[in-house]
Every structure is written in structure tokens, then in C-alpha cells.
């Protein structure tokens, strides 16, 4: 499978990072990840799907709020520590003000049946958005160095473990992760030896 490498763009300043992440955060009801993926990959083209999955893998494995990790990694990639802070502040500041305002205005959560119904509907949609994000990103699996079949196998097993059998997420990450990283490591090593053999036999002799 050959894919055309899209022209990538990037943020021009820390202010742009702050503004972009503020806008992302304000659109994220019931989680921001789906919005981050659509906006940064599909619309702004700051990274490819495959790069996004790589970043997300790290963000997910590191402790702490995943989306916050993702933001500071992306911000840090372009502008170092100040970039990381700009992205993280963008993600948190405006939504924090809104959520505090809501807490002050409504005390507890609005208990009216209308508000409850609306929340239910939004919840069902945001669940769909997360599933869709996973499905969209799964199109990167064929290019995985461990091979398409193995990659799909691991994705399905992770889903069955956590989605169906309800094992804690951390066991899937650590348990399955160790095995799949090991398999990938061996696959990459094999590719390297092949490549080294070729370059030593075909390379120019001095």
C-alpha cells in the first residue's frame, strides 16, 4: 500500500497554538480527543494519521490526563517548553472558566428532565465520536511494521479485553503492550538486517 504523503502545515506561533487549542477545547463535549484528531489531522494538516497515532500512544501510556499530555507533546514539538505551556493553557483556561461559571450558576447539575435528556443525547453522540476516531485511525494499521494481520489482531484483542471482558485499561496497556512492542522490535530488527545485507552487498566498493 503506497499512500501519498500529504503536504504538512504547522503552527506559526505560540499564540496560534494557544488559540487553536482553546477552540478545540471549547468544541469538545464529553472529551476532546475526537475534535483534536479531526482538527489537527483532517483540517489543519499539522500531522498525518500515523503520526497522530504515535503521539496518542505515548500520551495514553504516560500517566496523567491523556489529552493534556497530547497537547503538551504537540506544543513542545514546535516551540519547546513555552509551546507546551501555550497548548496546555489553551486547552484548560477557557473551559475552566466556563465550568466554574456553570458550577456557580447552577450549583449542582441542572436536574430538569430536558437538561438530563439533552445530556443523554450528547453522551450517546460523543461515544460514537470516540468509536469513529478509533475506526478512522485503524486505517493506519496496514502500514505498521509488525504487519497488517498482527496489528489488526492486537487491536481486536485490546477491544475484547477492555470492551467486552472489562479488564482494567492498565493491564491491556502493560500486558498486551509488552508483547506487541516486542514483536514490533523483532520485525524492525529483521528489516534492518535485510537492509544492512543489501547495502553491504550492493553498496559501492572502495
Amino acid at each position: 500500500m503506497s499512500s501519498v504523503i500529504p503536504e504538512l502545515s504547522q503552527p506559526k506561533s505560540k499564540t496560534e497554538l494557544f488559540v487553536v487549542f482553546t477552540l478545540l477545547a471549547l468544541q469538545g463535549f464529553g472529551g476532546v480527543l475526537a475534535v483534536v484528531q479531526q482538527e489537527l489531522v483532517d483540517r489543519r494538516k499539522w500531522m498525518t494519521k500515523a503520526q497522530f497515532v504515535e503521539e496518542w500512544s505515548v500520551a495514553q501510556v504516560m500517566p496523567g490526563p491523556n489529552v493534556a499530555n497530547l497537547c503538551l507533546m504537540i506544543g513542545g514539538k514546535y516551540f519547546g517548553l513555552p509551546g507546551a505551556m501555550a497548548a496546555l493553557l489553551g486547552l484548560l483556561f477557557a473551559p475552566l472558566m466556563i465550568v466554574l461559571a456553570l458550577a456557580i450558576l447552577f450549583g449542582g447539575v441542572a436536574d430538569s428532565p430536558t437538561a438530563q435528556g439533552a445530556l443523554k443525547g450528547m453522551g450517546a453522540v460523543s461515544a460514537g465520536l470516540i468509536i469513529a476516531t478509533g475506526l478512522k485511525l485503524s486505517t493506519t494499521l496496514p502500514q505498521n511494521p509488525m504487519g497488517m494481520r498482527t496489528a489488526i489482531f492486537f487491536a481486536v484483542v485490546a477491544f475484547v479485553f477492555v470492551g467486552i471482558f472489562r479488564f482494567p485499561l492498565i493491564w491491556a496497556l502493560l500486558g498486551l503492550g509488552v508483547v506487541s512492542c516486542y514483536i514490533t522490535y523483532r520485525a524492525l530488527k529483521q528489516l534492518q538486517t535485510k537492509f544492512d545485507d543489501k547495502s553491504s552487498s550492493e553498496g559501492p566498493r572502495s
Partner: protein
Amino acid sequence: MSISLSPQDWLDFFVHFASLSLLGIGGAITTAPDMHRYLVDERNWLTDATFSSSIALAQSAPGPNVLFVALMGWQVGINAGGGFSAGPSAWGLGLMGVTLSMLGILLPSSVLTYKATKWAHQNRNLTSVRAFKSGMAPIVIGLLVSTGWLLSVAQNDYAKNWKLWLVTIVATLVVTRTSIHLLWLIAAGGLVGATGIL
């Protein structure tokens, strides 16, 4: 609810969130049970109802879900100041609660993530670093689908909640097949839900 917190208590409060920061693999929400044990059962700084409504409110408002931690900090501060109606002194304590809880939950994990990412970037050509990033990819993809699945389908009884399933499935299909702005879908879900037919 009125409580009083000494400087030592505030320090404990910060340290508690800071220690949970490094335990929250898979998101801060995974440590919510421990926050409940500490804030509600052990220290009596929050009521059960306030604790639950902090999580519900943060999830229904825009922004990352970790903001439920800020709301807990706010409520503890407000309670320590004698309630919201007690005026600016209580609001000040509320803001202090927000600052301490958010710094606590974010600082340790952010420093670690930032350092680790920097290291990984400098060593991006190492086979082990590449193996880690590519090796985790299928697993985190599988986990994403299960997160959405657990939020919707697995939580609801089919006979009673088939309409919610339908909404989730339609949303999934629309997002995978079109490039429509996600905000429209959320708004549509909210509107349909508000009519009470779900």
C-alpha cells in the same frame, strides 16, 4: 457544608492530587475512586452529592474531562470559606482550591511526559523507541473503540435504551463517512435528547 482547612490541610490536599497524578495511567478519571475515598469518606471536605455532580458537570461542559478535578478543588475551597454566599473570601479560597488541585494533578505527569517525549524525540532512531510507538498503536486504537463502546452500548440495556444505541451508531457512521463538523453532531444529539424521546 462548612469546614475549615489549616495550611497543613491544604498542603495535604495538594500532595494527594500530586501523588494521584502519576498513578492515573489512562486518564485522571481512573483515580476518581481514590479521590472519593480521600475527599468524601476520610476528610469530609465534600459531600457525596457534590462529588458526583462535579464529575457530571465537567463531563457535560466543553473541555477536557480532567476539569472535574478543578471543580472539586473549587468546592472544597468554597466549603472552607463558609459557602459561596460568604463572599470574596470564600471565592478566593475556591480559586486556591482550583489552583492547588489542578497543579497537583497536572504537574508531576506533565513534567514526566514532557521529559520522556523530549528523550524519545532525541532518540527517535533507536529501534526500541520506534518499536514502542508502532507497537502500542494497534492497542491504543483498540482501546479507543472500547472507550466509546463502554460509554454507550455496554452501559445500556438494549431493550430499554435501543434509541441511545442508534444515536451512537448513527454518529459513528456519520463521522467515519463524512467530514462534518463534530459540533453539529453534538448539538443534534443534545436537541434530540432534550425532546425527551431518548
